[in-house]
């Protein structure tokens, strides 16, 4: 094998070596050799809790698929690598693709990593099912028409939904607004989307303070003091990490949460840390795509939530569902493509084609990949309440919106889309 390859390289000038290897490797696949799926999960730093959550969803999905004869009789084998800096993660992706020869890669959360991996997935011709990191820049500029990358829902969905709820429930009840958002693209995009939607709804407001603490900051006393001075009627924040409870705690201690209404687009990501002690009732709180305590949840979600709590002593968050969906969507796509190919294991291109528009049951209900490789899902937000059996807040009533309502359609700019609404 090595000799043939060397001869080949000598002919082609070392150019197409990998491709050649993959072609002659393909027929060698035994029908029951495992399907290899690489996983990129953050394990350290701010992203770690979310990365772990996504990994749990993937693992649970894999266990269930494998328990039910795998994909077309082939077991799924996970190869887990760490998502860290863009440079290191690109190298991990290459390793998964070139060395481990995975059939697909699932994972990645950080926007920077997401932007780096997009082109790499195309170059490596490796299917990549992202959990998150779908920024405007990523979708519009960097990879307008990807073949191998499948992205999550747009980053701004949460802000759009929270803004719609704000307009619906709080219109006329506030005039002065402050934003405190993490200082990076996600924070800036969400804040801009919020302001655009308020304008669209004709809500006159004045922005009294715009604060941009570092992502993952642990001290907000100065920010809280600045907010105290600005006295906003409403505070908008898209914190999603450990910064959420810390900010709320310090805001509560300074009496801020009693004076200002809160809109927390993504705080549900760390919902267990939002203790009743310091999180007020009546704040708009977003859980992204999975609300663990939803009364109308499917049996599947209930089973997962139970398993998660038993195993980790924690209630799951949305990233588990993103992770779960990538696995079941891949399985569904392979099966769909196989049906078209007469039951044989389909070629990668056929799997990609099948993934486009594929629909599968996620933990939180049906989901699909749009033809432009963006995920469609249902979002959960609502007003915080203390009336529950936990020591942290939940939401009641639970409002749901689908990406049909809160995600810009394919090929349209976010703000053009917002401006085209009929209000």
């Amino acid at each position, binding site marked *: 094998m090595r000799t043939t390859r060397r001869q080949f390289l000598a002919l082609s000038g070392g150019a197409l070596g990998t491709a050649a290897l993959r072609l002659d490797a393909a027929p060698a696949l035994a029908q029951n050799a495992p399907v290899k799926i690489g996983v990129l999960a953050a394990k350290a730093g701010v992203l770690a809790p979310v990365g772990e959550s996504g990994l749990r969803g993937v693992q649970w999905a894999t266990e269930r698929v494998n328990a039910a004869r795998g994909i077309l009789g082939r077991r799924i084998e996970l190869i887990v690598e760490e998502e860290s800096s863009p440079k290191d993660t690109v190298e991990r992706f290459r390793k998964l693709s070139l060395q481990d020869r995975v059939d697909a890669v699932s994972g990645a959360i950080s926007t920077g990593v997401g932007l780096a991996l997009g082109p790499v997935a195309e170059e490596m011709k490796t299917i990549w099912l992202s959990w998150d990191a779908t920024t405007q820049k990523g979708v519009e500029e960097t990879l307008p028409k990807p073949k191998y990358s499948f992205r999550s829902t747009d980053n701004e969905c949460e802000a759009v939904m929270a803004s719609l709820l704000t307009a619906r429930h709080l219109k006329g009840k506030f005039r002065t607004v402050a934003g405190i958002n993490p200082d990076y693209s996600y924070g800036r995009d969400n804040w801009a989307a919020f302001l655009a939607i308020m304008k669209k709804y004709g809500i006159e407001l004045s922005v009294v303070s715009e604060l941009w603490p570092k992502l*993952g900051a642990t001290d907000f006393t100065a920010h809280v003091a600045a907010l105290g001075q600005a006295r906003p009627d409403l505070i908008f924040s898209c914190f999603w990490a450990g910064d959420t*409870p810390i900010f709320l705690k310090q805001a509560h201690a300074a009496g801020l949460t009693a004076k200002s209404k809160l809109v927390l687009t993504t705080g549900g990501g760390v919902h267990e840390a939002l203790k009743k002690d310091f999180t007020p009732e009546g704040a708009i709180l977003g859980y992204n795509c999975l609300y663990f305590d939803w009364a109308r949840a499917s049996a599947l979600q209930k089973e997962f939530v139970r398993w998660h709590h038993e195993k980790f002593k924690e209630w799951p968050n949305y990233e588990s569902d993103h992770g779960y969906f990538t696995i079941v969507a891949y399985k569904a796509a392979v099966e769909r493509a196989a049906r078209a190919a007469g039951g044989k294991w389909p070629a990668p291109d056929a799997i990609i084609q099948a993934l486009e528009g594929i629909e599968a049951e996620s933990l939180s209900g049906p989901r699909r990949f749009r033809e432009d490789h963006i995920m469609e899902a249902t979002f959960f937000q609502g007003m915080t309440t203390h009336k529950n059996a936990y020591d942290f807040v939940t939401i009641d009533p639970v409002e749901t919106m689908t990406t049909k309502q809160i995600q810009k359609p394919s090929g349209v700019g976010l703000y053009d889309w917002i401006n085209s609404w009929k209000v």
Partner: protein
Amino acid sequence: MQRILNLACGSFYALGAYTGVSAVTWALGHGLPAPLFLLVLVASGLALAVIGPPVERLLRAVYDRDESFQLLLTFALVLMFEDVMRFVWGTAPVQLGNAYLVYGRLAVAGSTVPVYNLVVIAAGGLVALGMGGLLTHTRFGRIVRATAENREMSAALGVDLRRVYARVFTLGVALGTVGGALVIPATAAVNEMAIDVVVEAFAVVVIGGLGSMRGAFVGSLIVGVLKAGAIATWPEVEMLAIYVVVIGVLVLRPAGLFAGAAP
């Protein structure tokens, strides 16, 4: 004092924070009256200082080499402690609920301040005074200062340098761990704390002057005021402003605001 720039000071701080949460949660679970949690925090911080001597023992291996090696060794400690904390406490933020509001809140000049914050500020002041007293009025303090001035001279006078260093270092570790423990009720312990804190601590020490207690105190005030000022007026430049001041101080007064001559 020891002329060690310890990048791992942030790790001690984070370790103190995590341990503080665990200790208080455990104590409250075993029926400790809520107002006494402060004592548990301080005790857990002090108890953690046991890691001081072994770490100091490790650093001792490079005392007589270029200072750069000490810097590197503490960088190694940063990497190791980060994973130790991840292993023990996981990756999710770890916190105490609102226990600290048990001391109540005060309205000061139109804003509300938890009494606990004032307790921590007072504790900080007390520690500063205590350190000052320790360094100026006790035999140990005089030995430490003399040693900081001139290692060889102290050694020649029969001072057991190894013991002095071990004690000073352990004291430093204890200040870090207790500091972390005291701050934790008002915030939450997260993995990236150590690396974040060290950047600010670095700024404080550079601005104040290496080896100067008074400098460290003033340095922390300057950094605090600078941050608050930037957040209130021009939030975009918060971190930039700190580095600009750090570089300014290093360039104009490389030994810091509170030390004598340049290196």
